[in-house]
């Protein structure tokens, strides 16, 4: 037999960056779930070092405009920033992926109608859409979650649809159809397994957008309402701290940035930017 020798199996190595990234995601999730239990003070407790206190050993992030411990406020707020955004992103992606695959496989009328609807929604800048919804429906938690989910469904839809179309055009799909397989099998067993990795990266990016949207909304005072606060609301209520260079106003904003940047870098690393040598 003149075939070349069997190639060695490529062991799936998760790179160091990938491992760091996964650890990071788990840490954020843990923070969201266990935050309140880790907080040294309850969210509403006023401590007696005064308002806008600087960082110290007892209060690593200082105190806020009412004299409450910022570290605790941040830990309590993690639930809202991370948790709410996570729920909204999951909803957006589930909707987008389902509709995207449906569009790609069915084509025809379904595809045209869904495509137009997606175009219409995408044409409304996300924050503006949020403003309109809040003006109409108020700022309760379900409204915020649904609004963020609906606003980001079209993006997920387009992405999933493009992926599914690409895969659908491959020969192995035609082979399955020629065999007589039903659409349900083709989607579940042949198309989806090839979509998982790109969909995960899209999920990560969408999560970042949702965090930025919701915290931006809270910053405008139109998101999570007092006494609850996510990190964006924390920036808003402590905004006068700017004039006193208090950590209370910076720390929540930095926290958001750390969350979004770490997830974005993780995604970017995973998308495998080819390392190129200089020519």
């Amino acid at each position, binding site marked *: 037999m*003149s075939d070349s020798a069997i190639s060695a199996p490529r062991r799936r190595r998760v790179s160091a960056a990938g491992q760091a990234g996964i650890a990071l995601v788990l840490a954020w999730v843990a923070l969201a779930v266990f935050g309140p239990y880790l907080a040294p003070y309850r969210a509403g407790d006023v401590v007696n070092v005064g308002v806008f206190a600087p960082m110290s050993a007892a209060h690593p992030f200082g105190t806020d405009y009412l004299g409450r411990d910022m570290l605790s406020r941040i830990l309590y707020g993690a639930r809202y920033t991370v948790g709410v955004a996570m729920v909204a992103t999951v909803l957006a992606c589930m909707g987008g992926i389902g509709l995207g695959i449906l569009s790609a496989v069915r084509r025809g009328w379904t595809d045209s109608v869904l495509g137009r609807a997606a175009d219409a929604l995408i044409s409304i800048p996300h924050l503006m859409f949020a403003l309109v919804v809040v003006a109409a429906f108020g700022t309760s938690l379900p409204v915020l979650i649904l609004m963020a989910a609906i606003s980001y469904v079209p993006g997920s839809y387009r992405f999933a649809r493009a992926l599914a179309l690409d895969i659908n055009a491959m020969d192995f799909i035609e082979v399955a159809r020629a065999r007589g397989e039903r659409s349900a099998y083709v989607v579940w067993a042949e198309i989806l397994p090839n979509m998982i990795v790109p969909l995960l990266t899209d999920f990560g990016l969408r999560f970042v957008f949702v965090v930025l949207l919701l915290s931006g909304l809270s910053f405008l005072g139109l998101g999570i309402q007092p006494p609850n606060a996510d990190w964006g609301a924390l920036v808003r209520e402590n905004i006068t701290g700017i004039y006193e260079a208090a950590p209370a106003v910076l720390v929540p904003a930095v926290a958001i940035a750390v969350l979004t940047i770490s997830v974005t870098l993780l995604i970017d690393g995973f998308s495998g930017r080819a390392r190129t040598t200089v020519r």
Partner: protein
Amino acid sequence: MALVEVSGLHVTATGESGEPSDIVRDIGFSIDRGEVLALIGESGSGKTTIALTLLGYARRGCRIAGGSVRIGAEEVTAMSPAELSELRGRRVAYVAQSAAAAFNPSLRLMDQVTEGVRMRGLMPRTAAEAKARDLFRALALPDPDRIGSRYPHQVSGGQLQRLMAAMALMTDPELVIFDEPTTALDVTTQVEVLRAFREAVRERHTTAVYVSHDLAVVAQIADRIIVLRDGTMREVGPTPQILSEPADAYTRSLLDAAAPKPQHPLEKAPATAAPLLEVRGLTAGYGPMDRQGRMATPVLLDVGLEIRAGSALGVIGESGSGKSTLARVIAGLLPAAAGTLTLDGVPLAPSLESRGLEELRRIQIVFQAADTALNPSHSIERILSRPLAFYHRLSRGEQRRRVRRLLDLVKLPMALLDRRPGELSGGQKQRVNLARALAAEPALVLCDEVTSSLDTVVGAAILELLAELRRELGLALMFISHDLATVRAVCDEVMILYAGQVMERGPGRAVMQAPQHPYADLLAASMPELRPGWLDGIDAVRLAEARGEAARPSQSDRCAFVARCPVRSGACESEAPPIRRFANGSTVRCHRTEQELLAQQSVRSDDAVVVPLRRLNH
């Protein structure tokens, strides 16, 4: 002194892990002025890499790690970027494999052809354009005065290839490198382009390097041949010697693969037995139909064929002939607009959805691109188990056993079972494709260009496997290809498609001998033979008449081949040609009679297709 002197050449590539690996090593050769040297090898042999080092170039991720490349009196590997810019396109010119990808889509052709001389200030624009037009004429390009003002997408592949040669010759280079320039072209276009190249090179006494995997093509144009494998040189020698007395085993396997021997004919099934598959009047295409039944985009027109159990039908056609669509229509992937399909006497529903499980099982299709025909996220075991579960409802244990038997059948090792397709070689993937088709235990397997994207040696092994499987399992085959030699090696009956219509159909020998349909004649004449001097011997006049692109299928009342036919008559323009039966058993769609065609076509015995020169010398 030789013009080109290469010694100890060593090129490495840096993979993702950062480890350098060898691409070519220990390469040394020389080329005299006016000589044509061929670099022969399969994919991965390093032939293009070596050719590019003559320009001092290595692709991204690769570098010239050692050795010397001397052109004239200068050492290329020691040149600065500025010196290299002077060398490239001026003293050494490159003609790439894919002309469509080598031209900037946003610039006019004349600008790109004359760029080399204009940007170096060698000639003023008017003089450069005049010279370019002369080159266009010399290379037999149509409309040489105006073709330069077009954009690349307005011109055909064969024309682009010649324009690339003109671009290369503009600066009167000392050395021209041809990198598989005819691989992507149809066989009938290839001949024209090959002749044009050879004339141009001979007239100017240019030194040339010709890179290819096709020994027959190389035999026509090269003075000396270097055989490469896995980045090392296996054999060097003058062309006649390599072809007739190859010293290296690998060279011998290349020669064997290049000229597949026709298989022993099988015992023919009794003629009274009903055919397994019968197709009558098949018409298919895309797009809506108007009231007269004309399709927007017809692909197949009035196709008829028969395949008996255990026999093999070869379907030959060039791009646009509709051969792949034929397989899809038979498989049910594309419903026919008209005509009937019958399997074992029972009519087959035109589309998949209306066919029963048994009908689907008995006809299996294997595609050309092995890469995309296997789901990259499934293991080989999973891929092979599915048809077993789907068609035969086997239990898990039975599936495992059967999968292992299938791997044995296609001669693949068990270790591949838990690998993914991405870890297999091209030949292995195609074998898995075959195994998957066999898992259904079909009566008929449709092979759509299954060896076309494989190396010749690997492809030859697949052909052997197919022949063996036919014998062992009594399979019927429909083998689609554009390669006449391959089809003849595997099939009993041959069918020739042009513009969606069957031009000739009959036993293999009969179709390849005069009298034949003029297109069949043209095809046979265009297939390069493995002896030097074939290209010289071709009837240039006849080929020039048949120049042109393949006609597109159309539902009009004329012969589809009329634009290129050397024996066309008045009737051919206005009436659809009748179907004639010839004495040698073939059916031909032509206005001309058997006697007229016989008189016009040269008598060519089919032994001439395969004549190893060593036999001639004894």
